[in-house]
């Protein structure tokens, strides 16, 4: 191999290995074996876990269906769930479940969800309070939350 091309090849290999190493250590972790982390809150990964907790605490359940590639989920995370007032309500009033639709097919089927994002609010005795398909902007989402809190008595 000609000298210049040898150098170019080595540089490219260096770039590839550097990238592989650096990106593996710098890419944020979104969930581990216990929880999913969205909007700096902990979310249960399965409906079962969430339901158990909701029964124990007698609080309303929020089951949120999402995927990693869904743009509107990201919008939910950054513009809606992270808004301080909404974040506080989610933290204090709800038991949160984040169903990753790519992984947790069982819960996805259980609620018949077709596409993310999708939210279902339930009472601890599994009565559906409201279904919210698709994305809802922050102001409207706040109104929905208030209505759900009132209805669910959470």
């Amino acid at each position, binding site marked *: *191999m*000609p000298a*210049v*091309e040898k150098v*170019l*090849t080595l*540089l*490219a290999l260096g*770039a*590839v290995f550097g*990238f*592989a190493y*650096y*990106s*593996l250590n*710098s*890419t*944020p*972790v*979104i*969930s*581990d*074996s216990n929880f*999913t*982390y*969205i909007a*700096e809150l902990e979310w249960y990964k399965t409906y079962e876990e969430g339901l158990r907790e909701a029964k124990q605490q007698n609080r309303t359940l929020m089951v949120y269906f999402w*995927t*990693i*590639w*869904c*743009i*509107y989920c*990201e919008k939910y*995370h*950054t513009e809606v769930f992270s808004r301080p007032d909404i974040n506080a309500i989610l933290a204090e009033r709800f038991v949160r479940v984040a169903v*990753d639709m*790519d*992984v947790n*097919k069982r819960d996805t089927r259980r609620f018949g969800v*077709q*596409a*993310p*994002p999708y939210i279902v609010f339930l009472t601890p005795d599994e009565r559906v309070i409201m279904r*919210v*398909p*698709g*994305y*809802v*902007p922050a102001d*409207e989402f706040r109104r929905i939350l208030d209505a759900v809190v009132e209805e669910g008595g959470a």
Partner: protein
Amino acid sequence: MSWDLLLYAASAGGVLAVAGIALGRERVRRAGTGMLFGFLLAANMVLTYAFAVSDFSYYYVWKFSSSVYPLYYKLSGVLAGQEGTLLFWAMLIAGGALWLERHSSLLSRRAQLVVVVLALYFTGMVLVQSPFEPYPGAPPAEGYGLNPLLLDPWMALHPLTTFLGYGATAVPFAGALVYLLMSARGSGDAACREWVTEGLQWLRYAWVFSTISMAFGGIWAYKTLGWGGFWAWDPVESAMLLPWMVMTAALHLSVEHRRNMRRYSVLAPVLTAYSFTFTVFATAVTRSGIFESVHAFIAGGAGKYVMLLLGVSALAPLCLGVWKWLRVRGAPARSTRREEIFYAAVLVLMIMTFIVFYGVSFPPVVKLLTAKKYAVTKQFFNLWLYPFFLMLLLITGLGLSYSERRRREAFREFAVFSGVTLLAMFIKPGENFNIVDYTSFISATKPLLYATVGEISALSILPPVAYVLYACWIRARIRGLRLREAGVVLIHGGLAVIAVGVVFSPLFTSEFSVSFKRDEVGVEKPLMYAEFHEGFGRLGTWGVHTKEVPSEYSAVLLGVREYVEGLRSAAYPAVSSLTERNLSEGEVYTVRGYVEQAVLTEHAMFIKLTDGRSSVWVASPPYRVAKGEELVATGMVLLDVPLPDGGIGPVLLSEAVSFLRELAFREVQEVRVEVLRGERTLGRGVMKYESYSNGDARRPLIDRNLWGDVFAVLDMRVGDEVSMTVRIKPFINLVWIGVALFVLGMGLCILQERRTNP
């Protein structure tokens, strides 16, 4: 009879062909290859016909079709699932084997052997998960249907173009493997040279179809809410980009290899072979589900066979490549400047390919090992790829404008454009000029490198783009615009145009939300039942209303229409289709007819259904039915039953009848708006919210202009309110124009090749 027989017959043909090639019997080989292709073609035709006539006795047809679809969508169901696509793919590969009959060289024969074995393997995968599997139980009258989001003209064509592209990589794959093997042994030089040209031409076709398919997929994603634009870097999209990138690299290297057979004599065939490998990879990501879920992989079906094929097709070229590299260290010791620039560009492209590959594949691997899930979102790809993309454009510019004569000039230009690019990275006329909004990363961690790249100004794309366009012009001046040269200029110009579109369009998109309440608008006509299209429906309309938005924009509501579209009655067989058959006791049938008479007895409700030609009695639980009402009944036939009118005859024993008015195909809310900036109309049109029995779909308003689009989509559906999100998307159409240039340019290259090497 199960049509799987066709697949077995095709397999027999494949075995015959293999035997013919191994024994050197030409007739056997020809007959075998012909059988292989012929029977696979027949199987595809049978399946397509089953979709065309909505034959729901096949589970696969039931799952992906509905009798109410127009023919266009019915046919698109053929390639909606793994079974159908594998069958189609198998046929294309077999077609490649047949095509190889044209050539008589030893290399072609051996390549044909590989292609036939591939076709056999694919046929085997189809048999594992056959599209001809019957529907379990009595065939239903109506199919489950495609996901409503897929009911889109672009999506209907997307799989077709995808698999035409994928199918075209099989022959170059086989050729490259045999070529590596033979050239490592130093045999068959002339055939090898001829083969490089053939492989190149196949790759070009594959590249064109892959380009078109990604564009169709992009247009569809752009229209379909939830995917947020034409490209979202989700695993399926990224996996589709991979074969395209590998093909692009392979095409460049093969052209260079043909010019000088001692250059890239390993890398060019290895990458050519990998074009196929990555199509298998893309299939594995798309269909098997392993890249998000381990369960679908273990669950069986053809998934594990796809993985096996992936392993073999990844290892074979690699091993052969290494072997040849060790045997023939044939590369010249010196290289020219032009060759070095060329090589640098290909290397950068390969680094980018690796980044995409890594981004798609490391999260599932890590998740398998540690249960940790990484947030590999679009920012990951955008952040890592952008610097290399700039590099790629700059080197492309240099490569296009370089010639030995203007050597100094070319390097000077390169230095100037690179310098300006560096400067432009820091110039930000406004807030939103950051190349990537890295702050919206899901987690709070913001690594240094991300913050650095994320802060680069989007203006930095302009100098490299200008450079590529300028270089295209220089190249055209130096080399003229004959077919191939024009093609090369168009393709690289297209790349520059796309670059502006993809960087600027998301950046300068403005967005606002607006909602109209029924009360404030006023209802012109209440909801009422009315005849509609071929079905019937409820129809209601709202009035006209203008709403200012707290920005320079405003939206005028021009009207809302709400209606329910019924099923076309033809979806169900009429009564006479039942009475004209030889009925057998205990069989289940579905009929449609008008109520002629209804009698309530102590056992059941007897309804006499007629279609004008003949009539039949249906026994059902009591219903309130009116004479002349149209209904559909499914039930078991009992022969020789005493009838309410005194006679004896067949009765359809039905547990439930359906009134046709309740069998809605879809409910539609149709909203017409006009979007203004100040006094000026930016765009207008209709958007829809459609609810189907198997899901909802939102059809946005897209009003295209040369400078950009007005894009509006309905938000959640609440009865008394329509709320919508409106986006003004400038520069978006540059992406589609660029793709058109890609296709046109490559078309010219293909044409030129056909002229010189017919």
